[in-house]
C-alpha cells in the first residue's frame, strides 16, 4: 500500500449537491422530450471519474483484478463492463479515464492503490471537474457534426471508440459506448457553455432534455 494521503470527496455531511448543469437548467430551461424530438440530451451527473496514469502492463493487471475490465491498450480505445456502468478509456499512451457509478470511485481508488503497491503510477479523482452529457436519437450525429472537428461517421467512429477533440472551441472527450448513444465528457466550468451550444445546435431537430 502506498503512503499517499487519500480522502473521500463525498462526505457523510448533509450538504445539498447540485449537478454542474443545475444553473443552466434554471437559466436556459429544459426543453421537454416530445415525439418530435429527434435528439435527446441527458446529463449523467456526479459519476465517479478517475485518471489513471502509469505503465500499461501493470495497470492492466490491477484493473482486471479490481474492476474486471481490460485496459484498452490501443489508442482511442473504450472498454465497458457487461452492465455498461463502468468504463475505461485510453486518453494518451500512459493515461486512462475510468468512469464508475457515483460513490464507487473512492473505494475503487483505494483497492487499486492497495493492489498497485509500490508500482510507478498515479490515480487522481477528477470527478469534481467534469461531467458527462449523453446524446441519443437519430440526429445525435448531426448535432455532433456541427460541433466537432473530428469525423464522427460510423465507419471512422465505431462503438468502443473515444477521442479527445475540439467541441465548439472547447475541449471535449467524445465516446461511443453503444450503437445509439454518444457521450461527451466536458469540463464542469464549460458545462453551461456546452449545454447552451447543444440546445442551439439541436433546436432544428427538436432537442429535448431528459432529467
Amino acid at each position: 500500500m502506498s503512503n499517499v494521503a487519500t480522502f473521500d470527496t463525498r462526505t457523510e455531511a448533509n450538504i445539498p449537491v447540485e449537478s454542474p448543469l443545475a444553473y443552466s437548467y434554471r437559466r436556459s430551461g429544459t426543453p421537454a422530450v416530445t415525439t418530435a424530438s429527434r435528439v435527446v440530451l441527458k446529463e449523467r451527473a456526479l459519476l465517479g471519474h478517475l485518471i489513471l496514469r502509469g505503465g500499461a502492463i501493470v495497470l492492466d493487471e490491477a484493473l482486471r483484478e479490481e474492476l474486471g475490465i481490460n485496459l484498452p491498450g490501443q489508442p482511442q480505445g473504450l472498454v465497458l463492463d457487461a452492465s455498461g456502468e463502468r468504463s475505461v478509456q485510453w486518453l494518451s499512451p500512459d493515461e486512462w479515464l475510468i468512469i464508475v457509478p457515483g460513490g464507487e470511485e473512492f473505494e475503487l481508488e483505494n483497492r487499486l492503490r492497495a493492489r498497485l503497491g509500490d508500482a510507478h503510477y498515479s490515480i487522481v479523482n477528477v470527478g469534481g471537474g467534469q461531467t458527462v452529457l449523453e446524446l441519443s436519437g437519430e440526429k445525435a450525429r448531426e448535432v455532433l457534426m456541427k460541433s466537432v472537428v473530428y469525423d464522427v461517421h460510423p465507419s471512422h467512429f465505431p462503438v468502443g471508440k473515444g477521442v479527445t477533440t475540439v467541441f465548439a472551441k472547447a475541449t471535449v472527450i467524445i465516446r461511443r459506448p453503444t450503437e445509439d448513444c454518444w457521450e461527451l465528457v466536458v469540463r464542469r466550468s464549460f458545462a453551461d457553455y456546452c449545454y447552451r451550444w447543444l440546445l442551439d445546435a439541436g433546436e432544428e431537430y427538436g432537442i429535448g432534455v431528459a432529467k
Partner: protein
Amino acid sequence: MFYIYCPYCGEHREEEEFHPKGQAHIVRPKEPESCSDEEWGDYLFFRDNPRGIHHELWVHAVGCRKFFNITRHTVTYEILETYKMGEQPSITAETYAPQSSESEAARVAKQAGVRA
C-alpha cells in the same frame, strides 16, 4: 481541413488540435553553470530558420497532449514525416530528395516571394 498525423494517437487529426512549439532537437546544456554567456544565449534564444527541411516540435494539445516532432518543408509547407520524442528523423536536409527536381523548382518559383 488540414490533417496532421499524431504518432501517439496513430491517426490523422485536425490541425486545430495541434500547436507548433518551435525548433526540435534542442539539447539543454548538461551543466548550465559552466556555459559561457554566448553558449547559454544560443541555447535560449537562437533558432535556425532554414529554407527547406526543418525539424519542429509540435504538441497534440487537444488530444493526447504528447509532444512529438515534425519534419516540414518551409517552402512548400509539406509535412514529410512525424515521429515520436526521442526518435531521429528519417528525412534530413542532407538526405531529402524531392520527388521531381522540376516540380520542386516549379513549387519554389510559385513561392518566389519567400526568401530564406
